[in-house]
């Protein structure tokens, strides 16, 4: 969810290295020492939580990070990654890894804190993981619109601030093009939202629906400056882009960064009223993990309300453990961009797995759209 295609070159290099030198992280542990090898998104943990886990359990945590799902997925699909805990996003990676048999089922008896997870959200994950067998929700977010408040007020004061119309209607996009419109370079994160805006099924793999999406996006293509893999945090925060189809977490980070910079740039996040795609980052265990029991212990620890509240306070992403709310900082809990009210949550939607042929049709449409040809 955080960055789907940033620097694929690096992923390729890392993958090549891991194929040659696998397993990278699983150097033989000394006889009695218990370890767990964690592979998580960068900047996505409360360092104190890891310290505390090591102190309380004596299990050593070897912590490694990635910045794109592709890096993670390619490593796991190549096999023998050496990791014991990974954090894939529900779609497409988590569900694809389940289908490929790359993940081990969680043992609910050994992870009692699974019961802390919001049952509504866990049932929303079922479109990716029927039966909730393979993962626990770590953090979650939506795909929506980030904008620069001053630029929007100046260039398109009458444009709606609660709808995909702001971005997808050509008359609005045309006015905002002057200050920079960017889209996520990720077909899987853009197409379902456009389908939803068109009043169609976000899960549709029908070719006519895809054609409708393409023609809608072509309408605003001339006004798009760039397709950005991995989210437009930097572009929004620096004022280089003023309107972005982006992940909620990225926009919230951009807002925080813009405030730190103190140049008076205000970034806001919109959860469009037509509905926003919900994505979950899932705690999961690779099928060939060597330290499964330590991994389950760490997952159980992370699902403790006070630990999870610490993580949310640190990274500003919402978690799925409602009883942790009392320990979350009020400015985070009351930010509707991070914790949207129930009326907004009711309009969230999730997507299911896309069959390979439809995936290819989507990625080709995407390449055509980007090339403008």
């Amino acid at each position: 969810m955080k960055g789907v295609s940033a620097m694929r070159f690096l992923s390729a290099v890392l993958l090549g290295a891991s194929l040659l030198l696998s397993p990278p992280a699983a150097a033989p542990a000394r006889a009695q020492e218990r370890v767990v090898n964690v592979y998580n998104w960068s900047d996505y943990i409360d360092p104190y939580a890891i310290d505390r886990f090591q102190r309380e359990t004596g299990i050593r945590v070897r912590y490694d990070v990635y910045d794109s799902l592709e890096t993670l997925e390619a490593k796991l699909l190549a096999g023998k990654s050496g990791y014991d805990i990974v954090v894939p996003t529900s779609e497409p990676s988590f569900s694809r890894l389940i289908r490929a048999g790359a993940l081990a089922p969680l043992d609910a008896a050994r992870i009692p804190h699974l019961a802390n997870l919001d049952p509504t959200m866990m049932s929303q994950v079922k479109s990716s993981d029927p039966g909730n067998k393979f993962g626990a929700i770590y953090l979650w977010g939506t795909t929506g619109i980030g904008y620069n408040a001053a630029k929007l007020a100046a260039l398109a004061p009458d444009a709606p601030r609660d709808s995909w119309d702001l971005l997808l209607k050509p008359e609005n996009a045309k006015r905002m093009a002057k200050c920079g419109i960017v889209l996520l370079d990720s077909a899987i994160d853009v197409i379902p939202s456009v389908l939803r805006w068109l009043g169609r099924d976000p899960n549709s793999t029908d070719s006519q629906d895809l054609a409708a999406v393409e023609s809608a996006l072509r309408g605003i293509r001339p006004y798009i400056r760039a397709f950005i893999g991995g989210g437009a945090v930097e572009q929004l925060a620096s004022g280089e882009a003023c309107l972005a189809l982006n992940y909620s977490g990225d926009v919230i980070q951009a807002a925080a960064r813009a405030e730190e910079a103190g140049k008076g740039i205000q970034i806001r996040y919109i959860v469009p009223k037509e509905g926003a795609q919900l994505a979950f980052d899932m705690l999961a265990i690779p099928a060939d993990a060597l330290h499964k029991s330590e991994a389950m212990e760490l997952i159980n620890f992370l699902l403790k309300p006070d630990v999870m509240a610490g993580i949310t306070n640190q990274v500003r992403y919402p978690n799925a453990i409602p009883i942790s709310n009392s320990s979350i900082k009020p400015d985070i809990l009351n930010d509707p961009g991070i914790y949207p009210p129930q009326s907004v949550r009711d309009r969230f939607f999730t997507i299911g797995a896309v069959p390979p042929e439809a995936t290819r049709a989507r990625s080709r449409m995407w390449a055509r759209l980007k090339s403008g040809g």
Partner: protein
Amino acid sequence: MRTLFLAPLWAWLTLFVAAPALLIAVIALAIPADTVPPFRLALAPDALIQALTDSFYWHGFLGSLRIAAISTLACLAIGYPMALAIARTSARWRGLLLAIVILPFWSGFLLRITAWIGILRDEGYLNAILSAVGIAKIQLMNTDAAMFIGIIYCYLPFLILPLESRLSSADRSLEQAAADLGATPVRVFVHVTLPHSLPGMFAGLALVFIPVTGEYVIPELLGGPSSITIGRVIADEFFNNNDWPQASALALILLAALVLPATIARRAPRGGRI
């Protein structure tokens, strides 16, 4: 004795050229599947046939060849005069000038490309200078122009170095003789200097053209979305569509397509005699 000296070379070729190519060929003939790794071994030509017949892939190949051709010609236009100038300076300055050409290699490739992002972006150094002297800002990042700047910057030394080495080995008395016999400077260049430099020029052109055709990083980081390159297409097949056989088939064809110009460059006139 000769075999002994060549052994490391053969080991290197087997390990780092033949083995990976063979691995790619094996995967290209496999069938994609929802497994770890995501293919089933087979002898299926489907992916190769698809790679050769699908017009979408041809766009990718042609897009990359276009970028490589433009970049190579631009490198030649900029690099030839530079190589000639360096070759004609006194020995003392020549070493220094060559060192300056090589100097950028002392820092990482990705680092240098990232530095160009800092220069070319909307709020970057170039636009800061432009607006300081009263010229309107230009948008360069994420355009073809930025991509070509990055490619030419990175690959220019590969053209200059072999060309300069050839030019500096030229016998200047031949040029003087031609001039004494009444040839104009242009005639001297076309009939004496240029033919002598051809082997170095072809080596330089191949050193630029071949890697630029497969170039993925610079178009991805500096370029705009407007050009489909084969590097991007392969990455999409691998990472987005999870179709390793298709990605491998395309990589294999790219490899074959690049062996051709390399062979031509090898067969190119060794030149030197007039």
